């Protein structure tokens, strides 16, 4: 497609659908055309632990005696040589859950940073509301229409952006990526195609012909862009993918999502923001300690991310992985050897550019008078300061204030993990 011709004909399209006064963003993109960018670009991989992971058993404050007092049956024991059931020592005060050994080498090589006691300043203990707030990044305000990662995409208008600039490996577009900037959501890469069995190629040809000949229509422009993206992905040949560096992803939907994100990055399709999520963290009963429900889920979580890191190898120079969960869980274990909905939590940030090997954020303590509402880990880092640091220093947005309406972002509050 000749870009100049495209511009001209799309101009007609603007007028004919009566949108000439305020062209919506997708029209601008159609007007400017789109070629998947092959150049180097920064990528953020965001992973949501839906259901509120117990941050205190994920990143264990074994240096706090209150931790053991308040969790008689579910605590993780202090690191001890030769004890595989004990916490993995990080800095003499914090330790990783023993099922997260995949993170140990990343910590040791200073590529893994932890921000503890972080999260939303809103006190909602509803999963729905808290996920909503974390994804819109407007705690307390429900009517925010777009997610913060979509606002990031809007803030950095990129005429050369590819259709795969933002990809969610989920069936539906998650709240964090909803908004006017285009996003592709798909459960599997193979879904992003014309699916008509043996005649798929033939039928796709038919659609391409239909959408090619009708150039005075916004839909036609988007159709051409769609097939450009489909064909581009096909060339990347996702069926033939082999992970590198001996990476072994868990055989689960989560593992597959991460593997396919690695595929997209290696295929240089212009991926800038990738998203996926993992459920099953709502451990109200029998969450276990070094083994059990939470241990199994943390094992899947950390080994998946570990494999992704290994697979991407040197490419992690330009990639940062961020993990988050809507709120933490009660410091005290409940009557059912589980934990209930709490407040602050822990986030991981990983990448070759990350100043890792450190637990960031002020630790508020776990003594009774240090707890939030006498039950939860208090909050010392607003998640917007973490997101904001990633957006400015990693993704390089110039317009970071538009990302968090109602919040004045300041680098003085950044944790400097980048």
């Amino acid at each position, binding site marked *: 497609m000749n870009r100049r011709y495209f511009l001209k004909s799309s101009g007609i399209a603007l007028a004919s659908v009566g949108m000439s006064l305020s062209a919506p963003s997708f029209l601008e993109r159609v007007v400017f055309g789109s070629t998947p960018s092959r150049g180097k670009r920064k990528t953020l991989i965001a992973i949501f632990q839906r259901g509120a992971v117990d941050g205190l058993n994920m990143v264990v404050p074994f240096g706090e005696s209150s931790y053991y007092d308040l969790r008689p049956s579910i605590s993780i024991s202090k690191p001890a040589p030769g004890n595989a059931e004990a916490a993995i020592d990080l800095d003499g005060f914090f330790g990783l859950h023993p099922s997260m050994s995949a993170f140990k080498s990343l910590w040791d090589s200073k590529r893994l940073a932890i921000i503890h006691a972080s999260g939303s300043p809103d006190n909602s203990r509803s*999963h729905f509301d808290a996920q909503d707030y974390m994804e819109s990044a407007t705690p307390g305000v429900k*009517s925010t229409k777009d997610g913060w990662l979509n606002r990031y995409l809007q803030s950095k208008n990129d005429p050369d952006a590819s259709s795969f600039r933002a990809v969610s490996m989920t069936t539906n577009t998650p709240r964090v990526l909803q908004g006017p900037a285009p996003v592709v959501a798909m459960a599997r890469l193979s879904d992003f195609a014309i699916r008509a069995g043996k005649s798929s190629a033939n039928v796709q040809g038919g659609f391409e012909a239909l959408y090619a000949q009708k150039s005075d229509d916004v839909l036609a422009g988007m159709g051409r862009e769609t097939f450009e993206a489909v064909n581009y992905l096909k060339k990347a040949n996702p069926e033939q993918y082999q992970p590198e560096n001996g990476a072994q992803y868990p055989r689960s939907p989560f593992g597959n999502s991460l593997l396919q994100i690695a595929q997209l990055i290696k295929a240089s399709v212009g991926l800038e923001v990738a998203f996926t999520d993992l459920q099953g963290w709502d451990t109200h*009963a029998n969450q276990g300690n070094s083994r059990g429900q939470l241990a199994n889920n943390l094992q899947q979580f950390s080994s998946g991310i570990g494999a992704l890191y290994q697979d991407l190898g040197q490419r992690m120079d330009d990639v940062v992985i961020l993990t988050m969960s809507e709120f933490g869980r009660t410091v005290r274990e409940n009557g059912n050897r589980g934990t209930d909905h709490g407040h602050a939590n822990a986030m991981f940030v990983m990448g070759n550019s990350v100043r890792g090997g450190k637990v960031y954020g002020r630790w508020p303590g776990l003594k009774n008078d240090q707890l939030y509402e006498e039950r939860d880990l208090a909050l010392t880092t607003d998640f917007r300061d973490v997101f904001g640091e990633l957006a400015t220093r990693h993704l390089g947005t110039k317009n970071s204030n538009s990302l968090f309406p109602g919040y004045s972002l300041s680098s003085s509050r950044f944790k400097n993990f980048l």
Partner: protein
Amino acid sequence: MKIVLVIALSLSIVAPPVAAQKSAKPHALSQEQRIVHVLNRLGFGARPGDVERVKAMGLENYIKQQLNPEKIPDTVAENKIKDLTVLNMPAAELYAKYPQPGQLLRQLRARGMLPEGAPAPENNQTPPAGNPLDNEKYREVIQKYYRENGLQRPQQIIAELQASRILRAVYSERQLQEVMVDFWTNHFNVFAGKGADRWLLPAYDRDTIRPHAMGKFSALLQATAQSPAMLFYLDNFQSVSPNAMQRARGPQQQRRGINENYARELMELHTLGVDGGYTQKDVQEVARCFTGWTIFQPRGGGAAVNAMMGEAGRRNAGTFFFNARTHDDGEKTVLGQKIPAGGGFKDGLTVLDILARHPSTAKFIATKLVRHFVSDNPPPALVDRVAKTFTKTDGDIRETLKAIFFSDEFNSSTAYRAKIKRPFELVVSAIRTLGADTNGGPGTHQWLARMGEPLYGFQTPNGYSDTAESWVNTGGLLERMNFGLALAGNRVQGTQVDLSKLTANETSQAKVLDQSLKTILAAEVSAATRETLLKQLDQSDPVTKVVGLILGTPEFQRQ
């Protein structure tokens, strides 16, 4: 009345509309186009034979009929939905017959019915905890209990509700009624994934939206304000005045106070619009007025409640009630109007009255209706006229719609096929145009979700967008094409298509194509499109392919 209508109609044909479009000169539509236009906008597109039927009865008669749905017999649609039992159940029955696994587990434990050695289930949390069916220790005993007691999983409720929406949109003769149900369900959006809303939504559709979809806006607004579904979704059920009698609560009770969520969205999204002239102070005052508007047993009565309150407690679970003990009975001022102390339940009604009759509401509702029925960019002159009608008729939805349907702007070529169908409109219109038969089941729900419009699946209170830019994107467009192919190829589970009916056993390729184009697109395609399609007819099963392609054309994405 009849005379007025006819005059309005003939005017619209004689006088060309004045919509300001530079390139395409607007002109009046042909009679055939007007019929197609009305079938597309007042309904979910034509079924085979519909255009001829409307022509025979007269277009104005058809529109008048659609504006009075209660007079249209609708036995086919009623038969289609008669086995969807959740539609007629009160919330209490839904709680009982479609229990949440977690709640069931707690009950089983209370009755000592869990097997030896099974670990203790979670305590009574708000909101309910994770799914115990993910835990293999519980799975078997719970599944057995569901089976033996004729219970079903709660997901079934929304599955049946979605099915009813699809079936009615496909089969109902009351097409405009279904369009308005879709419009108001979206305007007063409630997300099925939030807590108890799953059990509360059948009543929302049945008792709140449907009875008022073509009635008075004020009645609709009050119905939504008192609906347990909305009270739960926007948290008003737990909005409690700090000044009210709360002292009996023990320290274990969750601390609660005023929740402004409903008050804010009521003004921003349901009535005045974001620039409608209210302040944060108004939000706070409105929230005070609605304290005590709550739900009796919002998550269904547990065993303890049943024991305490008996049959009445069980029956009324999940219904509206006003709790005077949590109401703030002081004086309030809303949009400059004083609401005296001691109003109790009436405070909320007064607020709804002020809002329903506010000029900003007339403008906001008129804008949304014109955007839905006429154009993504609502012509301001039409919005003004429609808002005036809204005000003059005290928010009569039927009269307001009439002002739109008989306007020049609606009947202009600039409005013709100018709206991009939303996925729900696409799915239903595709099934209708092919005369396909559907059960409205999960097969169709999955396609709606893939294209981005799962019914009752929009999280935030603003509802699905009604403009093109939200729906024209690579992933969405690809899924639209795939849906067309799947439907034509009989690969949508629960939906059957007989394409031989469509093509009347024509065998010549050109005739097959022309017949398909006539049925699906009223033959309104360019010569180039027809030529392109003709070239595609090279396979063993040309009809399936060509129908799939036509459903995926840019033309069919429009209405």
